Each structure stands twice: as C-alpha cells, then as structure tokens.
C-alpha cells in the first residue's frame, strides 16, 4: 500500500483540486443548499457518502464490464445510469434499514442524483487510471472537500444576511461574488505538492 500516494490524492481532492472551487463541479447544490450551515453540512455528508460509494461501485463496472467490451467511450452514459440507480437504491435501503442515517442524509440524497461532482469523481477515477482503493479514497476525500467548501460558504452567507449591498446584487449575484472570492482564496493551494 502506497500511503504517500493516497495522502497526496486526498490532499489534492480536498484542497488543490477541490471539486467546487477549482473544478466548478457540483455548483448547483453549492448555490442551492448553502443558505444555512445546518443544511449545508447535511448535504456535504451525503455527498461524501455517495461519492465514496459511487467510486466503489463504478470502478468494478468500468474494469470488468466496460473495458472488456471496449465500451469505455460509453463511460459517461453508463455512470449516469449507475449513479442514478445507486442513489435511488441507497435512499430506499437507508429509509428501511437505518432510519437515523436516513433522517440525517435522506432528504439530500435525491438532489445528489444529478450532482455533477459525483459523475466527475467517477470519470476522473478512470481518466487517472486509479486502482480500487485510490478511487474510493479520491471519492471520499473529494466529498470532504465539498463539505469543507459548502460549510465555509454557508457560514459566509449567514453572515452576509446582516450586511448591505447594492439592491441589484440581491440574492444569487452577491452569493456568486462571495463564491468567486472563496475560489480565489483556494487558488493559494495550487502548486501544493507532497514530497516524500
């Protein structure tokens, strides 16, 4: 097991190539579910959960079904299918088997079906030809990065409620300005490398 490699993947997914502020994936829930810290953290947890599971499920499908049939060009379509079914299945399963976890995540799960960050993570897994463990680590830590940024952003939006801005910036425009500033600050992590 190459721990250093896994650590560098994790660091990259959380800070350097953060899904939201560096790759601009998953912007829809990022803008939509970031009005309260509470809902934002719930969404973040659900994304970690789904990204990890999607990575784990999509890797064998890619390795044992798509690659032998020379169907890697169908990855995007297949993964959409897999993620959508997976999310639906998880939702039903959790509701029955783990109501507590369903209560915590459940309401955020349907929204994740169409979250492009999840599709992005499984596609990047194949593009970077990650192994199974690497894929899962990349998926989970990508979710952690999502959680970090969405919670930061929600905290800022809660504070912004008390500040004043020109009327024309009401609502999403001012939120987008704030998001841009966060992205700018995360640029500071670019070039960060782990040297062992």
């Amino acid at each position, binding site marked *: 097991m190459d721990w250093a490699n896994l650590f560098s993947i994790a660091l990259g997914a959380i800070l350097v190539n953060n899904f939201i502020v560096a790759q601009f994936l998953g912007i829809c829930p990022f803008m939509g579910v970031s009005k309260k810290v509470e809902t934002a953290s719930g969404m973040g947890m659900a994304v970690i959960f789904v990204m990890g599971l999607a990575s784990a499920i999509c890797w064998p499908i890619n390795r044992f079904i798509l690659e032998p049939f020379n169907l890697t060009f169908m990855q995007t379509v297949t993964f959409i299918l*897999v993620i959508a079914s997976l999310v639906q299945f998880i939702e039903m399963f959790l509701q029955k088997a783990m109501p507590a976890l369903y209560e915590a995540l459940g309401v955020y799960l349907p929204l994740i079906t169409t979250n492009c960050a999840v599709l992005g993570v499984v596609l990047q897994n194949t593009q970077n030809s990650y192994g199974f463990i690497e894929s899962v680590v990349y998926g989970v830590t990508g979710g952690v990065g999502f959680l970090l940024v969405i919670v930061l952003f929600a905290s800022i939006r809660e504070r912004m409620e008390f500040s004043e801005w020109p009327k024309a910036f009401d609502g999403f425009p001012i939120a987008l300005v704030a998001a841009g500033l966060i992205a700018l600050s995360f640029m500071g992590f670019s070039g960060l490398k782990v040297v062992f």
Partner: protein
Amino acid sequence: MNPELLRAAIIAVVVLAALGAIFGLVLAFAAKAFAVEKDPREEAIAGILPGANCGGCGFPGCGGYAAAVAAGKAPVNACAAGGAAVADKIGEIMGVSAGASVKMLAQVHCTGCGQNTKKYDYVGLQDCVAASILPGGGDLGCGFGCLGLGSCEKACPFDAIHVVDGVAKVDEEKCKSCGKCVDTCPKHLISLVPYKTKRHVAITCSSHDKGPDVRKLCENGCIGCTLCAKACPKEAISMVNNLAVIDYDKCIGCGICAQKCPRKLITVDGKVPEPKPQAPKPAAPAAAPKAEEPAKKEEVSAAASGEQNV
C-alpha cells in the same frame, strides 16, 4: 455499413440495456422490500410542488421542503417557483390539520389617522418602499404611520391585506401568516401575532414619539400615558419607548385596556369598544343564563330519572 462499427454499436446497446434492466429490477425489488410508510401530507405536498428541485426555498429539493412543511418546520409559501397557486394548495392541506396549533395573524399597528397630516405632497411611485426613502420617511406627518401605498398588498400572495382608507387592513380569514408583508413594510408596522379567534386584542399604533408630538400629528396615536398598562389585570402590557406593547402569552382578551385607552387605539376583534365601563351590562345577561342553566339541568335529570322509573 462497416460491420465492425455495427458490432460495436450493438454490443454497446445490449450491455447498456442489460445494465439498465438489472438496475431497474433491483430498484423495483427494493421499492417493495424497503417500503416505508410516510406522512400522507408529505406526499400530497410533494405532488403539488413543481418538482424542479431548484433549492430556492433553502431546503434540499422539493421532497425536503415537503417534509419540512409536513413537519410544520417551514412556511407554506416558500416555494418561489410554484408561486401563490402552489402556496394556496399547500395551505389548504396544512390548514386543515394545522388548525390545532396557534394560528398567527399579521397585525397592522396603525390606525391610519395620520393620513390627515402631511409634510408635503408626494407624487412619486405608488410604492411605500420608494416613498419611505424620501426625507422624513415619506409624506406622512407621523414618522411611524402607514403610508398607504400598498406595498404589502402587492407582496401578499394570498390577497389578504388591502389598503382601506389609507391604512393597510388584514383579512383574518385569508391571512396565512406567511410574513411577506412584515418583511416588505418599510415602516415595520406589521408583525405576526398569535391570533385568538375570540377577543383578539391589538394595539394599532407604532409611534415612539412623545405624547405631545403624537397629539399634534394623529387623533388616536399612542401617547404613552400608560393607562392600559396599569389597568391590565395580567400585566400583559408593557411600555416600550413611549409605546404600549402587548405580551400575547399573558393577554386573556378581557379588553379592559381597550376601554381605558383615551386614544381609542386598542381594538378587540378589530373594533374599538365603548370607552364607558361595560361591566354591569355583560354581567347581567351573563348572570341570567347561569341561573337558568341549573334549572334546565334539573329538568333534564328529572326527565331522565322519570324515564328510568318507567
């Protein structure tokens, strides 16, 4: 046609169809195996919502919002995409079952009498927010009064608030206490108060001016005389910065404050009661039925016992 290409296409279609069929079967099976009963209202609300999962309400998707409404944690009209029509329908669903909880009501704290005294003639946009930006906070003599230009009327998704004779009036039947008017009013005249269907007491003034100033501007603005606060048997009225404010947790709706108020600005059920003490009048009719009731009961019991004897 290139046979290689055709073969690849067929394989792709077959593999994807097979994957789709497998997932479909698993989901169909899971739907049966993991079926859980839900709050029927939640499903009814989810059915009404547009289903776009836009997240505009601040909840994660329409399902999350429906669950929050069903649990009473969200207002019925937070769906901007659905608008008033959807809010109305959800209100109907929740209104039936939410009847037990305390109904809130938007209360306008102004009698509108300040319309008689104007600082200047306002000829701008017919909108309170626009008018209130002007020097003096609008044309009204009283700096706290209702401008009567109907911003609340436009904001109300339920057609429940209207400007009548220069002051906003709330229709208690239609008001669903969404708070849109509260947020809109630039004068902060409207607040959500617990609505008692019988004997709802309200103080219809927001002026923090001192007594003599209020007298000049308005016939029945609160002059901060504290008579109501002293008269209240439950100490439900307190004076906040020259203005009487009701604590609805303590108010029992006796209406003594309304009778005492020299400015006739405290209303009971939307009307100003006669200033003269009415104590003897209601007491007499109240006493008479009480005297009759025991007699009736005796008759009934006598009849019942008579039947039993037979």
